[in-house]
C-alpha cells in the first residue's frame, strides 16, 4: 500500500496566520471562515473553494478571501494588506509543523458586494501546503 498522506486544514492555517500577523500592520479585524454573529461592520472571511493536490506531498488548496467593510475604500484598504500578508507566506513553517511552500494569486481583488450590499472585496489564491504521512 502506498503511504497515506494527509494535508493540513488550509483554512485553519490561514486564519491563524492572518490573526497573528495582521495586527502588526494595523489591521485588527476578526478573521474567520464564517460570517461572525453578531455581524461586525469589518471582518475578513476565508473559505476553501477547491484546489487539487499538486503532487504526493503538496496540496494546492484554492482559498477565496473576502474583506468586508462599511465603505469600498476601507474594504479595499484592508484587502490590500491581507493580500500582501498572504502572498508573503511563501516558505513559512509554523510552530505546529505546517509548511506553506508557496502562495500564488489565482485572481486579484474585485469589488463584489453580496446581497446585503455591504462592500466586499474578494480574491482567490492557491496555497501550496506540505502534507504528512500517517
Amino acid at each position, binding site marked *: 500500500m502506498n503511504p497515506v498522506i494527509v494535508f493540513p486544514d488550509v483554512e485553519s492555517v490561514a486564519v491563524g496566520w492572518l490573526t497573528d500577523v495582521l495586527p502588526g500592520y494595523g489591521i485588527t479585524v476578526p478573521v474567520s471562515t464564517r460570517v461572525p454573529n453578531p455581524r461586525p461592520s469589518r471582518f475578513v472571511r476565508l473559505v476553501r*473553494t477547491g484546489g487539487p493536490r499538486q503532487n504526493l506531498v503538496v496540496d494546492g488548496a*484554492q482559498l*477565496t478571501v473576502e474583506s468586508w467593510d462599511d465603505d469600498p475604500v476601507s474594504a479595499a484598504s484592508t484587502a490590500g494588506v491581507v493580500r500582501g500578508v498572504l502572498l508573503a507566506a511563501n516558505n513559512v513553517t509554523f510552530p505546529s509543523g505546517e509548511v506553506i511552500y508557496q502562495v500564488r494569486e489565482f485572481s486579484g481583488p474585485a469589488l*463584489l458586494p*453580496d*446581497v446585503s450590499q455591504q462592500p466586499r472585496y474578494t480574491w482567490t489564491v492557491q496555497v501550496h501546503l506540505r502534507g504528512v504521512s500517517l
Partner: protein
Amino acid sequence: MAKPRIVLTRSGPRQVRQSAEVLKDVAARASRIAAAAGPGMEASSQQGQTRARASVITATYEARRAEAQGRALTRAIDSGR
C-alpha cells in the same frame, strides 16, 4: 559527434494554441465548469487573436446570487482541470 541543432518554429506554438483541438478542449472545460456550477451559468468559447479561449459567466440573477453568496462558480473551477 556533431552537436544537435534545435530550430524553433516561432509560429508553431501559436498554431497549437489556435488549433481546433485546443478550442474544443477549452470549450469542454468551460462546459464542465458551467454544469458543475449550476443553473444560470453560461459557457462560451471563441478563437482569439493569439489563442483559443473560453469563459463561464453568471448569466442570470439566480446565478449571480449563487456566486455572491455561495461561490457556486468559484467552487466549480476544479471541474475544468
